[in-house]
């Protein structure tokens, strides 16, 4: 029914879009929508509140700025950790082993007598770097795959959809440990690994948004005017698809930060004695005896990590509501 159909020569593949279709195609469409919905929900984002009106959604609110403030602090600390006036995080016997918090060591010291505060500060580097890189990777790779699939549809769409489906069939942590355990555990590999995990969910979202926009008048207009596919994708679709994807950046980052923490907890995140990460710090103090006698070693990184993930989730969710992403996506 659209130009697109003629191009792909695949009438059944074009079922997606605002115009209702009959039969299997529309069932498929509903299923897709349902799957994406499920993904968004399973990505641990509390759902929209039906009782809130649009006005509420359009307000970011004080707590949003609080969350953003915390994230900015973390980002600053991560970026400038080596220049901050804190102890050397790798300095063994900075204090005695497992000393409780004091004026010298605000968060106390760990089993090797290292400054937990300084380590927590430096730990932000890996967590945020991995989180940031992973989500950017997911957006670039998943986003482009999703847009291309959504725009061209047909076989390509099926293939990409299948690939996403396969990726999603691995429980993410299993896939992650498979990769990090067999490759070396450099910062790049760990970031890439978690980035790969982000590809499929982001891709599905991009595909869904593309499907919506590909039906819109401005795309049809561009097409009628004879624009090339590349131009349509980059100039017409991309700016529109980037908004919903971008709105989910922080939420994705939260997931990535947790994933990195889990890997570190299993001893499979970035290797090396300089690689300080919150997950590694938490597992370091998580032995029964350490947990009982030196709770601070674990609890400070736990709290900081929690606050960071909470802020990411909270700010991310606000942004999502602000841009009304769900409606855009469907």
């Amino acid at each position, binding site marked *: 029914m659209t130009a697109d159909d003629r191009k792909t020569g695949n009438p059944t593949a074009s079922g997606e879009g605002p115009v209702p279709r009959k*039969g*299997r195609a*529309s*069932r498929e469409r*509903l*299923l897709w929508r*349902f*799957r994406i*919905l*499920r*993904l968004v*929900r*399973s990505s*641990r984002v*509390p*759902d*929209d*509140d*039906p*009782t809130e009106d649009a006005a509420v959604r359009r307000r970011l609110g004080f707590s949003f700025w609080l969350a953003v403030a915390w994230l900015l602090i973390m980002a600053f600390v991560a970026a400038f950790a080596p220049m901050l006036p804190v102890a050397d995080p790798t300095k063994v016997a900075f204090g005695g082993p497992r000393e409780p918090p004091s004026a010298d060591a605000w968060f106390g010291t760990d089993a090797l007598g290292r400054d937990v505060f300084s380590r927590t500060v430096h730990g932000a580097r890996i967590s945020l770097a991995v989180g940031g890189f992973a989500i950017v990777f997911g957006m670039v790779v998943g986003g482009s795959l999703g847009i291309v699939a959504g725009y061209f549809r047909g076989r390509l769409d099926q293939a990409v959809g*299948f690939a996403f*489906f*396969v990726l999603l*069939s*691995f*429980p*993410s*942590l*299993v896939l992650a*440990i*498979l*990769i990090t*355990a*067999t490759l070396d555990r450099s910062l790049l590999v760990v970031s890439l690994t978690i980035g790969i995990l982000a590809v499929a969910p982001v891709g599905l979202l991009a595909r869904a948004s593309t499907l919506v926009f590909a039906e819109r008048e401005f795309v049809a207009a561009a097409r009628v005017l004879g624009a090339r596919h590349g131009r349509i994708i980059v100039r017409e679709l991309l700016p529109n698809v980037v908004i919903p994807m971008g709105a989910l950046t922080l939420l994705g980052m*939260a997931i990535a930060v*947790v994933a990195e*923490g*889990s890997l570190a*907890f*299993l*001893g*499979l995140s970035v290797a090396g004695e300089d690689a300080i990460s919150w*997950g590694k710090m*938490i*597992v370091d103090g*998580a032995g*029964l005896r350490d*947990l*009982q006698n030196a*709770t601070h070693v*674990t*609890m400070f990184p*736990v709290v900081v*990590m*929690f606050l960071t*993930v*909470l802020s990411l*989730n*909270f700010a991310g*969710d606000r942004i999502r509501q602000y841009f009304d992403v769900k409606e855009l996506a469907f």
Partner: protein
Amino acid sequence: MARFVVRRVVLLVAVLFAVTFLGFSAMNLLGDPLVNVVGVLAELDCEGIEAGLVEDTTVDAASRDCDTVAAAKAQYHLDQPVPVRYVLWVGDLATGDFGTSFQNDQPVSQVIREKLPETLILLVMAQIVSLGVAIPWGVIAAYRANRAFDRGSTVASFGLLSVPNFALGVVLLYLLALRWQVFPSAYEGDNLGGLVFSMVLPAVTLGLPLAASYQRLLRTDLITTLQEDFVHMARAKGLPPLRIMFRHALRPSMFSVITVFGVSTGALIGGSLVVEQIFGIPGIGREIVTAVVRDDFPVVLAIVMLVACTFVVLNFVVDLLYSWLDPRVRAR
């Protein structure tokens, strides 16, 4: 409908093949299975020895080491290209032969049989915990929508969703096992009672964040359901509010919760890797971490296969349920 199911089944099988092929190639190409079979001998330059270019350093009988390497290659088909090996592996699978663990010579099927019950109990308990918490919580939140309790629970669920499960596990372990000593700090597998009791903390660790997301879904659906006519009708009949909630409104509102069931089980399986580590549960999650670290290909592949199957099949069933349950789909 039948055609739809067939299509889905074909897709399901295709996905399973793709997943296992991906895992199989990754493990074979990224690691060297020969090292696991013959250890150091994998380093021998047998071609060089054969050609007489390298001195044969075999300790006892002549060329024995290279014979072993050759025998091992033949037995594990390591002389074949990866796709051929994959086909052979699938063939073995079809006959119920999962292979033999590299770590200990136990058949992989036995390893899985030993470790699976613990993980299953953990997953089931986690789902029970999450539903047990989420249903009353969601009902009350919806009943008092936008009141203090509801607002508070929004914050609480945000909080729960933001605690990484390893952090939650460590915190619960500290508070409930070490500090207040309500639960044992370690796995006790001697008898069923002890086992279930020692699994409470791990199940709560896994279940609580899930409860939070279930609660959000349930609350949203409940609020929608409460606008329905039959609820107004029930109210008009003067039924007590709680009875309306639980008897009339709850069931039609479970839809979203059921739909995320498959995906949430996948998340639970992922979480079990970490949680089993914290609480020392000898289950599948711990086994796969060990096996991955030790390059125990047969075990890793079997578990990946198992987990992916479970995951895909569960989602397949949920998809079916969805298209069967959802009035919009059914109507067509």
